[in-house]
């Protein structure tokens, strides 16, 4: 119990799609009875192709969506039951980094306000205190603190992603859900962001739930991997075991499909 942060049991999320008034609504099983654990300090990756349910799982963990069935407990507490202050505490412990560095930052807000929002809403800190903390966070993610008064559109994709990371760090969270955080970036920028994520994990003792379709990235950063396929978990293993000995046919197919640079020297 001690080192398990998230315990997900028989989690289901179904969506109804209306096809017209004369037809039965179609039920899409985005997540269909999955169970897994996230342990403290690890990087757990959810991998799979588009529509496999990995992003839906992220939304459920963050309480952006409510499950159709099943439970998610965070440090022993059922998160579906959280309200008010408890919910607010939960929010500050579990944060997210989004995929799209463009739509994830409010274009009308300055960087300082974007990074400071979690603090404004969830703490009693005064404006100068918040500003100080935001500048500190900016430095931590490798941005010049004097960019405090700039707008998101003045930054490149990689820098924007750093802003998103600083925002996620603001409340000193325990877990960060990274929803395809590097897949919209150029490879060279990808490496910078991955390096940063690894640094921060060490420094702040973070746990990552890392969502990606890129197995090379996943292999590099993860401790354990959960492979999803059409809403279900087909295989969950430590990374070495998975790469060395993929059991499920889909995992094998996926592994053989990933383009990997043929060994150099």
């Amino acid at each position, binding site marked *: 119990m001690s080192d398990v942060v998230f315990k997900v049991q028989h989690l289901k999320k179904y969506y109804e799609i209306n096809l017209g008034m004369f037809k039965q609504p179609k039920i899409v099983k985005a997540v269909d009875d999955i169970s897994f654990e996230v342990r403290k300090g690890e990087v757990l990756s959810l991998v799979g192709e588009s529509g496999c349910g990995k992003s839906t799982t992220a939304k459920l963990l963050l309480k952006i969506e409510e499950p159709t069935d099943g439970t998610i407990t965070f440090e022993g507490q059922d998160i579906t039951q959280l309200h008010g202050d408890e919910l607010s505490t939960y929010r500050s412990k579990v944060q997210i980094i989004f995929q799209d560095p463009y739509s994830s930052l409010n274009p009308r807000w300055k960087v300082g306000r974007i990074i400071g929002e979690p603090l404004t809403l969830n703490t009693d800190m005064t404006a100068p205190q918040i500003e100080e903390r935001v500048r500190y966070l900016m430095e931590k993610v490798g941005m010049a603190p004097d960019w405090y008064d700039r707008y998101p559109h003045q930054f490149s994709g990689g820098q924007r992603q750093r802003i998103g990371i600083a925002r996620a760090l603001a409340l000193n969270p325990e877990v960060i859900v990274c929803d395809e955080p590097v897949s919209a970036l150029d490879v060279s920028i990808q490496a910078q962001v991955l390096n940063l994520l690894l640094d921060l994990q060490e420094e702040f003792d973070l746990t990552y739930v890392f969502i990606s379709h890129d197995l090379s990235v996943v292999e*590099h950063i993860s401790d354990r991997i959960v492979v999803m396929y059409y809403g279900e978990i087909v295989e969950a293993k430590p990374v070495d075991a998975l790469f060395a000995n993929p059991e499920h046919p889909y995992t094998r197919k996926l592994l053989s499909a990933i*383009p990997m640079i043929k060994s150099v020297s």
Partner: protein
Amino acid sequence: MSNLVEIRNLQTYFYSDAGVNHAVDGVSFEIPQGKTVCIVGESGSGKSITALSIMGLIDPPGRIVGGEILFEGTDLLRLSDAQLRKVRGRDISMIFQEPMTSLNPSYTVGYQIDEALRLHQKHLNKKERFEKVVEALDLVGIPDPREKYREYPFKLSGGQRQRVMIAIAMACEPKMLIADEPTTALDVTIQAQVLDLMKELQEKKGTSLLFITHDLAVVSQIADEVVVMYRGHIVEKASAEELFNDPRHPYTRALLHSIPRPGVTPRKSQLDTVDDTVDYLAFPKEIR
């Protein structure tokens, strides 16, 4: 080994109020007969503009301001519009990144393949063309090609659409196919299938392939020759083997090492990065 295409000192600039963007600035390389050349680079490197320049598809405010594109010895830049149109689709064809938007939603799949034949193989009659379209669909691995002829693009999956695009491009058996990030928008398993298909077709038909991508892993799987572009310039040009075993230009090296490689890159180690503060163009170009 003869070269199908030779590009010499190509310059394509874009003009705007803010100034001139030297998108492609003095690029030279060759595409040998029946081989695959990959242009690799990050966004803004000018790789797609190079491809579009070869096709003659640069629109204002962009303009090809200098250089030569020799296709079997003829400079494409000196051809009239009408002459160039005969080359496009017949001798050189092209497929694009977005399979969801690169087919016209208003016409059937068959119509769109048939159109290429109508334009370039005027000796065929309707029935012969139909058979050829069905054959083309079959060739790219679309099941039930006769039924699929009448299908509209919105009914097909992304992978199938990209197959149809390939069928359009290959319909007239061109001497060269240009593929601009053809697999980037696809899921990995589909991506692998489409790559296999392209390789297979290339071998079968002896087509030269110019493959544009940002993904070095894909390059390593498909390329014979590699051209690395950075900010409108070629920084390194080598055979795939040479490039991956012995990258010489600092930019190429940084790019290669920024990608984690399972089994090679130590897990959770810091990756090499392309340094924003370094001007990689200042290094001597490694063109072998």
